[in-house]
């Protein structure tokens, strides 16, 4: 307990320190090194059952007050955990990626490719718990990513590495990547139709191959794909009904649009 209190105290100091020493070039490095030590200490504590809960709380608290440099450092520490670590550590590291994404949405864009690559690599893990955590986390990432400059750019960040993974002959990887793909399509904030349509022939090609091992999982991706518009329209309407109804009137055929328009008015 005493140890915990002293940790909290020094953490508060560190946060004040980042503000105070921001202008000094030397001071900043010291703060970052201190932060790194604290993150590594917490990650080490994760592997012991007695200190596990404490470590999770510590890491979540550390994740909250991060500078951009701090975030990069935190992510680097999370990437470094390898297969030798206990499965609890590996799972928490994956979950923390999601936590960081929700806390630092605005800083996310530049880190995203590396985060996704890291998650995809973890899909090879023999522990199914961790693969499930990967699928959940990639869903969180997809829901936190805003629309990119180009249409579909934010989707491509996820889709490209996932397709590369689907091409590898590894059962867990193929199943996991298929599930991730379905989750990304379900969760994305930018369901760009041309990008999504490009996925279809590639999925068909994979299913046509005789030695593809994640068939059942990839079929759920097709289900997600075919549901995209129906779900998104309802979501958009509930957010801002008036401009959306106008949009729908121009884009959708009248027969399908009329009930939706009524729905928008009622809402």
């Amino acid at each position, binding site marked *: 307990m005493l140890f915990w209190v002293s940790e909290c105290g020094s953490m508060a100091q560190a946060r004040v320190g980042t503000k105070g020493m921001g202008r000094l070039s030397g001071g900043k490095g010291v703060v970052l090194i201190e932060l790194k030590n604290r993150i590594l200490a917490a990650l080490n504590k994760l592997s012991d059952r007695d200190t596990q809960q404490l470590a999770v709380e510590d890491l979540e608290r550390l994740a909250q007050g991060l500078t951009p440099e701090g975030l990069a450092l935190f992510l680097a520490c999370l990437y470094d955990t390898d297969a030798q670590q206990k499965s609890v550590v590996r799972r928490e590291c994956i979950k923390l990626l999601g936590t960081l994404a929700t806390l630092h949405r605005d800083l996310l864009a530049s880190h995203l490719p590396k985060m996704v690559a890291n998650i995809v690599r973890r899909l090879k893990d023999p522990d199914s718990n961790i693969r499930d955590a990967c699928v959940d986390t990639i869903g969180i990432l997809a829901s936190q990513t805003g629309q990119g400059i180009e249409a579909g750019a934010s989707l491509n960040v996820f889709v490209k590495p996932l397709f590369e993974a689907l091409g590898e002959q590894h059962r867990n990887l193929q199943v996991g990547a298929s599930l991730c793909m379905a989750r990304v399509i379900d969760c994305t904030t930018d*369901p760009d*139709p041309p990008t*999504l*349509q490009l996925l*279809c*022939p590639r*999925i*068909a090609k994979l*299913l*046509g191959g005789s030695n593809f091992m994640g*068939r*059942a*999982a990839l*079929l*759920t991706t*097709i*289900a997600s*794909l*075919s*549901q*995209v*518009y*129906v779900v998104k329209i309802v979501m958009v309407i509930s957010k801002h009904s008036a401009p959306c109804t106008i949009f729908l009137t121009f*884009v*959708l*055929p009248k*027969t*399908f649009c009329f009930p939706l328009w009524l729905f928008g008015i009622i809402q």
Partner: protein
Amino acid sequence: MKVPGVVTGPVLATMITCVLEELENTEWAARKAAADTLTCMVNALGPSLNIFRAPCTTALQNCRFDKV
């Protein structure tokens, strides 16, 4: 009548053929997933699947005696 969605036109045709092929897969899990996917697609896309009604029914008839 066409329902606008991501999966329409030729893309829909490829997807449906894929799913129907999977219905005849030797692996039970794949057949089950294909059936579930077909349910999802029918629910989501509805009337635009009208043209595919005949092959769909034949495929479903063929696996009528499959274990659930």
